[in-house]
């Protein structure tokens, strides 16, 4: 039984929960929001739906082989998992949607940083061939490669720090939209450094970037309108 994927997921959850607690203790988000629990719940739903979608796409039957749902290493559908996680989070925060999503953004980005950094547990950090001084070789190989998952982890960590710094300075929903766009863009930017069969789910990353930017623009405009109305 392989547990390395579990350690990787654990590091992602740990990073998200630590940042969520930091936000709560510093008074950046209301304590009663239950941010850490909501993020963990959304991630769990996302993994389950993504796994079911992957099985269906691959032609495996979840009803005839229910135990196989648990073997996440066989594949999770990125797009379905992301949509399900976002929908679950949005549903949980529906009473105060945009403020809630803004509050969740830094912790979610930190969780992604932890997930990507967790590649070290699985020996799954390396990407395409590189001669750069920090490039690393697989065990038993002399060919050095980009530690692409650590690049992604660094990008997410920087973005999470930026989101914490921004806090509530922007109109409600702008930070959440921008976080979604940057999260998708970080995957898109690092994708060429990952060896893949058929290019990877580039369409989903593009869709995430566009959706995030649309939310950012729409919320920025509506926030501006609200501010204007208040001034009147």
């Amino acid at each position, binding site marked *: 039984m*392989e547990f390395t994927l579990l350690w990787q997921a654990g590091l992602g959850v740990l990073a998200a929960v630590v940042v969520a607690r930091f936000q709560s203790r510093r008074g950046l988000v209301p304590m009663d929001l239950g941010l850490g629990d909501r993020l963990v719940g959304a991630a769990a739903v996302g993994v389950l*739906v993504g796994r*079911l*979608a992957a*099985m*269906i*796409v*691959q*032609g*495996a*039957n*979840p*009803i*005839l*082989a229910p135990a*196989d749902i648990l*073997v996440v*290493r*066989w*594949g999770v559908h990125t797009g379905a998992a992301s949509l399900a996680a976002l929908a679950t989070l949005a549903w949980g925060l529906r009473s105060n949607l945009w403020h809630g999503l803004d509050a969740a953004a830094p912790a979610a980005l930190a969780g992604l940083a932890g997930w990507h950094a967790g590649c070290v547990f699985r020996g*799954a950090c*390396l*990407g*395409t*061939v590189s001669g750069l001084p920090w490039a690393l070789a*697989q065990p*038993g*190989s002399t*060919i050095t490669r980009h530690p692409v998952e650590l690049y992604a982890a660094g990008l997410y960590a920087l973005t999470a720090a930026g989101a914490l710094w921004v806090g509530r300075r922007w109109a409600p929903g702008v930070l959440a939209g921008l976080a979604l766009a940057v999260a998708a863009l970080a995957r898109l930017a690092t994708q060429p450094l*990952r*060896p*893949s*069969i*058929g290019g*990877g789910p580039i369409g989903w990353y593009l869709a995430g970037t566009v959706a995030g930017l649309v939310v950012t623009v729409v919320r920025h405009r509506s926030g501006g309108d609200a501010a204007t109305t208040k001034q009147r």
Partner: protein
Amino acid sequence: MLVTAIAVVACSAGPPAPADAEPIPALSVEDFEALMNTSDRPLVVNVWASWCVPCRSEAPLLRAAHESFGDRIRFVGIDVRDSQGEALAFMAEFGIAYENYFDREGAIPSALGGFGVPLTFFFAPGGERVFFQPGVIDERTLALQIDELLARS
């Protein structure tokens, strides 16, 4: 929608083997070793069976890899502990076009030191084993090992 999709998948059956399909040729351990040692291209050897659920999971990935890299890497499937009819239906269902061999007793994976299905072996030209993946292979591992084979050759 998800429930509907699951129900549709549950109620559907894979296509039967084409009536005019040639049987999968049998291959002995000696013949396999000769194939491995004389191949001028790197080799990806996947051991599978039609009754193996994880094999269904990785079949589309292997087909896509063959479509992308088949001109530079030789893909070989070894079907073990299976029946010809079920195996041919499996290949038709997933559109597997690379060369496949029938090994009813599973002697080839045993000789390679593998147990169970699926298994995937990666060999450099000349037969040097570069990597061995017991169990199902994911896209990242397959892509990285193919890249490693191409970088070495």
